[in-house]
């Protein structure tokens, strides 16, 4: 190989500034998650659909307030220009009721999810962070709680406390907070042992800084996913309770009790089931798919 004369080379000047330059924009965890979520068309579509349903839930009942008035001369009409979804056995406007049900069901689902999540995070957080015998005791308590049949607690509360949506939400929360607490605890136990936490600790980071900078952000992903998934689960639980007559009380409407009364009559009046079931089905589908997308997007392991 022939040698090349030295003067053919010009040295590149040392430019510290440009060497440090980051060409691609720096992305925080959340920005990166958002970027990945945006790539997931199904999840994005679901998200916009949920946003739309939220708007329906908030403003719909104001536009169509006539959900409880009976029209006994116009019972069981099919969909028509006055009653878009038809009327039920009391001549109530099914459209207004489905819209009202949207509000009630989403409200129940969201509130119950937020409450259980908040409680579960605190409980699981304490248990997971402190560990040791406190953790053992708190986990045993959860084991016991989840072994008592839910129905006893539900029926007891629904019968003893004043009837209404707050009682319903309370009863559902009391029987289902343990799952999220377990998840949060599991997450914390796992994250606590990670090398970056060890590094932070050896570098002298305070417990507060570790919790704020490492534990919470890293556990937040699964918590948010769980929150999203809990909404349809609670909507379903209310529907099941409606099926055994413990759901929301008349004249209030929820997707659950609309679907339940629809099931009784759909052989002759299919629209009574189809409309509420469609709202329920598509919304829970969207919530589930969005939750799945969110999980993918928030999972650091999915980063490429």
């Amino acid at each position, binding site marked *: 190989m022939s040698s090349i004369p030295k003067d053919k080379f010009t040295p590149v000047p040392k430019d510290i500034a440009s060497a440090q330059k980051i060409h691609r924009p720096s992305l925080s965890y959340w920005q990166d998650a958002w970027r990945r979520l945006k790539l997931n068309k199904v999840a994005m579509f679901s998200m916009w659909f949920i946003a739309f349903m939220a708007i329906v839930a908030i403003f719909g009942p104001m536009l169509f307030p006539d959900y*409880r*008035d*009976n029209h*006994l*001369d116009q*019972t069981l009409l099919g969909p028509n220009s006055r009653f878009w979804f038809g009327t039920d*056995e*009391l001549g*109530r406007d099914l459209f207004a009721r489905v819209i009202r049900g949207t509000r009630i069901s989403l409200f129940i689902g969201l509130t119950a999810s937020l409450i259980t999540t908040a409680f579960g995070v605190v409980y699981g957080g304490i248990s997971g962070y402190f560990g040791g015998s406190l953790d053992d005791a708190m986990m045993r308590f959860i084991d016991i709680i989840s072994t008592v049949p839910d129905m006893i607690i539900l*029926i007891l509360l*629904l*019968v003893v406390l004043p*009837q209404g949506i707050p009682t319903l939400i309370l009863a559902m929360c009391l029987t289902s907070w343990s799952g999220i607490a377990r998840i949060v605890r599991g997450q914390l136990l796992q994250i606590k042992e990670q090398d970056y936490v060890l590094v932070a600790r050896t570098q002298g980071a305070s417990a507060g800084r570790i919790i704020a900078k490492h534990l919470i952000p890293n556990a937040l992903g699964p918590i948010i996913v769980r929150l999203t998934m809990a909404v349809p689960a609670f909507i379903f639980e209310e529907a099941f309770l409606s099926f055994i*007559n413990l759901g929301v*009380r*008349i*004249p209030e409407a929820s997707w659950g*009790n609309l679907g*339940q*009364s629809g*099931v*009784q*009559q759909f*052989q*002759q009046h299919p629209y009574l089931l189809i409309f509420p079931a469609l709202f329920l089905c598509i919304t829970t589908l969207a919530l589930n798919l969005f939750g799945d997308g969110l999980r993918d997007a928030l999972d650091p392991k999915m980063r490429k």
Partner: protein
Amino acid sequence: MIKRSLALILTILVLATSFAGCGIGASTGPKGGTLNFNLGSEPPEMDPQLSTDTSSFMILNSTIEGLVRYDKEGKPSAGAATKWEVSADGKTYTFTMRANNKWSNGDPVTAADFVYGFTRALDPATASQYAYILYDIKNAQKINEGTMPVTDLGVKAVGTDKLVIELERPTPYFLSIAAFGTALPCNQKFFEANKDTYGAEAATLIYNGPFTISEWVHEDHMVLTKNPNYWNAKAIALDKIQVFMIADAATTKIKFFNKELDIAGVPGVDMKEFTDKGYKLNDYSDGATFYLEFNTTDKLMGNAKIRQAFSYAVDRKTYVEKVMKDHSLPALALVPPILPGKKESFRKEVGDLINDNDPAAAKKLLAEGLAEAGVAVADAKFTIIMDDGDLNKTRGAALQDMWKQNLGVNVEFQQMPFKARLQKMTDKDFQIVFAGWGPDYNDPMTFLDMFLTGNGNNHTSYSSAAYDKLINDAKVEADSGKRMDMLVAAEKMLMADMPIAPIYFRMRTWTAQTGIEGVVRRAIGGDPDFYWTTKK
């Protein structure tokens, strides 16, 4: 393309079915002698002395025979007893037992079996819930309360073929008590051999009725087979009754349309579907009246005008026709039409006692009542409690809307399990309850004595000395005409004071597959009764 593959699949299935004995593609055929019937639930208690529910009584009526049984017209007729004599004072019944009448184990059915049945029902150790049905028998109540030995019961066997029953007081309806489930016979030998499981399985019960239980899979089905040893076996046309225990109404309907069931109840909302499919609907009254019960110890409901306002604000005709959509009748008094008066129906003789749907009067009464009670309109809060159930969701919403339209009040609606509702009523923790009552025996008294001061079923706490006197006098009045007049006066008083507001008299509707004849439905006694049923 889709059509073709569908056809292919069906061909395969049809072919497959020719190999399969049962399961896919099986056909049961019409099976002439077997009746397929849905009881709706497992009969929870088949020990006759302990039974309290209609499903158990329905099966018992077909399998165990008492002294008398109800005939087609609902009159007590000869059963295990061929005839009976009543003493002049109406306090002693002497039954003559049927000769050559056998239990399914071959033992003869004797007077001693009845003595043992009555004694067992009243023995405090048996703890029979319906023992009080037999309290008209001499010393029965004391024995049941544990203050007298069981041997003192006024039921004695004289030889094997005579049963003498002494009563505490003349009881004109005693034969309908003798036809009741609690009064069925009990074979002592068999019972003692199966003490712990008596009535729990097909083999641990003994039969003397038109059918025997030949198969019993709990919670699933029962097979009743014609009893060849039954004294009137030649009158029984059915060979078998296949009894299903399907609780879900929609599933039952589908099973009926698939011809897997021969009989179906038809709720109001389904009537059109059944008639559209060509089924003929039959109605019968089960004798139940449904009404609003007001808590008279409540500050608001203690006021008669407020109670009347809530009653007048209900449009019963619309409620029955448009909301219930079945063949029930609007009730404008308490006693249902099936109960007898002096000559014909009590209801027909007395007529309606309250007004239906009078919003103007209702509004006026409410305003006056609230003023009397010293409660401002804005502070008046009302709550109605109904039992669980889908139908009640609709019906409660309808009442709620009527009160809103006609009275301008928002009534809170609560639905709760039956036991919780009764607890609230016992605790006097309610304002309005929607409830019903069915007759125990064939007399208006079965409804009217409920509202005596302190009666265990008088949850309204209604208390009227005049009313108590009328009812108590009627109970000992020997002259039936005068007695009826007292009952009429009592009902009028009740409807004026209005501790309860009747809403409707229930009618039940049912249908059967073509070829089924002679099904008997009734309000008092085992229902339905397939004694006279034939199936082509």
